[in-house]
């Protein structure tokens, strides 16, 4: 039993040696996120408009019901999201919206520093999501 105890403790001690530490000095130092990280959403733009065609699949699938889409017809007669809004305070970052989107119009970025002061600032409108 003592043998196992020593073995376990040696791992702990090894991590105390310089160069073996996993904690980083945030915010001075920041890690690179995995490509599959689920951070703030981004609406993908095309040359002329947003890629989203307002199909209503993401608001339908969203378990937190935090996506608002209002579709309309643009001058070219195409369907587009007149309103696209995510209430980030309610979002649970499950990524179902990304999965549901039939046209790959919504992605999740690696942005996770989302703290803010006012409730309104958590309302991500279309323009903001297109730039994120």
């Amino acid at each position, binding site marked *: 039993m003592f043998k196992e105890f020593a073995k376990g403790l040696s791992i702990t001690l090894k991590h105390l040696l310089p160069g073996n530490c996993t904690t980083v000095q945030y915010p001075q130092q920041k890690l690179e996120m995995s490509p599959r990280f689920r951070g703030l959403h981004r609406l993908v733009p095309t040359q002329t408009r947003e890629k989203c*065609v*307002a*199909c*209503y*699949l993401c608001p*339908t699938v969203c378990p937190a019901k935090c996506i608002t889409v209002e*579709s*309309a*017809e643009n001058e070219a*007669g*195409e*369907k587009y999201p007149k309103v696209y809004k995510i209430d980030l305070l309610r979002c649970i970052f499950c990524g179902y919206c990304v999965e549901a989107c*039939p*046209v790959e119009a919504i992605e999740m970025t690696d942005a996770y520093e989302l703290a803010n002061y006012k409730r309104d600032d958590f309302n991500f409108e279309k323009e903001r999501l297109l730039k994120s």
Partner: protein
Amino acid sequence: MVNLTIDGKQITVSKKATIYEAAKEAGVHIPVLCYAKKLLPYGACRICLVEVEQMKGRLIPSCTTPVTEGMVVNSISDEIRKVRKTVLEFLLVNHVVECPVCDKGGECDLQDLTYEYEVVTNRFEGEKFDLPTDEINPLIERNMNRCVLCGKCVRVCDEIVGYGSYSFINRGFETKIATAFDRGLNCEFCGQCVSMCPVGAILPRPFKFKARPWQLKEVDSVCGYCGNGCTVTFGTKDNEVQTIRFNDKNGVNDGNLCIRGRFGISYVNSDKRLTRPLVRRNGHLTETSWDDAIQVAVAGLKAAGDKLGVISGARLTNEELFLVKQLAKTLGTENLDHSGGECYKGVTEGLKETLGIQASTGTFPQVEHCDAILSIRSDFYETHPVFGMVVNQAVRNNEAKLTVIADKRGKFTKLPNARTLLHKPGLELNILNAICSVLLDEGLAKTDGIEGLNELKDALKDYSADAVAAATGVGADAIKQAARELAQADNAAILLAYGLPYTAYSKELGTAAANLALLTGIAGRPGSGLYLCGEKANSQGAVDLSILPGEKGLGAQQMLAAAGTGELKALYLIGEDPLTSYPDRALVEKALEASFLVVQDLFLSPTAQKADVVFPATSFAEKDGTFTNAERRIQRLRVGITPPGEARTDFAILQQLIQEFGGQAPATSAEAFAALAAETPGYEMVSLEMLGPQGYVWGGDILQPESKKLLPVAGAVAVDGDYQLLVGSSLYHSGTVSTGAKGPMAVVSEPYIELGREDAAALKLVDGDLLKLKAAAGEIQAKVKVDRRLPKGVLFTPYHFSQLELNRIYRGQAAIAVEPVKQ
């Protein structure tokens, strides 16, 4: 009956059933694309293939194959699954799959089947359709790149609507659905094709990109326009009725609607709706609070003492009408009336004096099985289009012989083998008399137990078929044939619509139609019927509840006259716009000017603009209650959306007024129904719980006449003059409220004067020219529409538009002598 086995289940079905119908009854699901309950079997899509033990070696389309005794059916097997999947793959070869932007997505049969049969790849390759789409039409959007060629649109427009807009054109891969010469749609815009299309090829344009089907809340209610009483299902979202959903499970209309019901709903969400009460101060109508408005109204009505009158519309619910009656009682007046006071007299006096009842004797579905149908006026289709579709089905499926007594041609006269008795304007009565006289002369009349036979015989001496033929311009043989058909038919129907533009001879026409119904034995015979159909959604309810002048009371016209002379001091108008729609504008103007006027309406109508107090009321989509349709069917309305601003239901307003005057009013509309049922003949046994999805027909499918008395009616005399103007309804509108709805306005946006080609040529007029009509009482002017419907010397104009001021020359005549002057 036939016994068969489906998936091991033993069932017994009618021998007329198909395998699909039998399976449905047994609870076995078979997918379909081209099948529809109300259409004849077609067998175009082959998605419904099943195996039948007795017909081994091939798969059998279940929607077209009739059942036979001892049949053993398998609805699913590996082979069937494979074949159905292949059928879907074929369909998807050319189909432009754009579900994310297709408004059908979520309720698309092709999408659902593709999902169910897991068609994720396609073994076949081909070019995608690249056909031009029609997105210009304001009501119906067509995108044939999504069509699966099921033919439902073609069939519904032909079999049910009887219009025939579409057909298949080209062959093979090029096949597509198109209109004549592949032009834009120019039809009745009933939208039946929209409701039938299983995919997103034909869609309602006003709903384009508005919402997804699963976001809509569905509320079952009744159409608020005409007395046909079609059930509608609102699709609501964001407190707006976004669209009307297809629903063939409720009511008697099989999911069929007309343009008004399907595309005429938008007025309820109009931003022109009144949202606050208005009171006249310093000559101007100004917004105010409810309390204030009620106080001003109460003070004004009190000041009038018993010198006041109440005129109601016929689009209030039964419960509200009951309160209208209560209010009149509380105010101590018998001056109570509805709908102009004249047009319904065929029912309240004509039928009452002859048959002893005040309603149609049959129900609509019976007419589909009639062998002979007589329509008095061709306008019947315009006023009651969905009942008209039943007539079309009788003509097509049952080879019914249709006779139309008409002063102009129209939809009915174009139906296959229709016999048109095209007469000089205003002479319907003479022809009805002639038909009666033929029945008596030829010994075809059923005279058992009928009173007044001899008097009628005497009175009809001058109305022999030949004499009437000479006077009306109709062939004598045609009259005789029509009479014989009606008398000899096993099941026959007589149809007559009444409404504000048809005030002339209203009582006489009701009486003459009743005489004919008695002599042919139609009245009270199972399968047959006499149908007197009211123009408005609750015309029948208003008659049932007796929203009529009391013994010493004045009718609507007399009230207006009395108000004009100062005899009546105050008028209370609920849901009526007499200035636009009542005959004789001078009379109405004087009355509105002279009296203390309270108007309760949705919009600031020309009448409301003259009022001293205006109460903002709610539309049919914002209230619950019941309507009684023209076949006595009591059906429930349900609240779809909340009213705009401070608008209140007519029920709430009337309730408060009654209380202000110290009366007792029922607290809820359910209580009101119980109270009105207790005192309305025919409703005694009815409770709200009895109003199922099909409503409840008071008096039963066949209402037996209480008396059988023939009453002679004198015929009319033709109007003199080279040009005569007929007043009536346009198919696309109903009453005046449809002029606030986008759908009907997209098709007919302004008043017009219609005339035949011959007259147009003689007067050198073409479509769109401005024409003035001078008559004895004044003149009107509107754009010209040239058509082929009207005989020489006859002009027509619809009455829905306030800007026409038609009632300057229309004073309730059957036809108005006019002098056309090109502008």
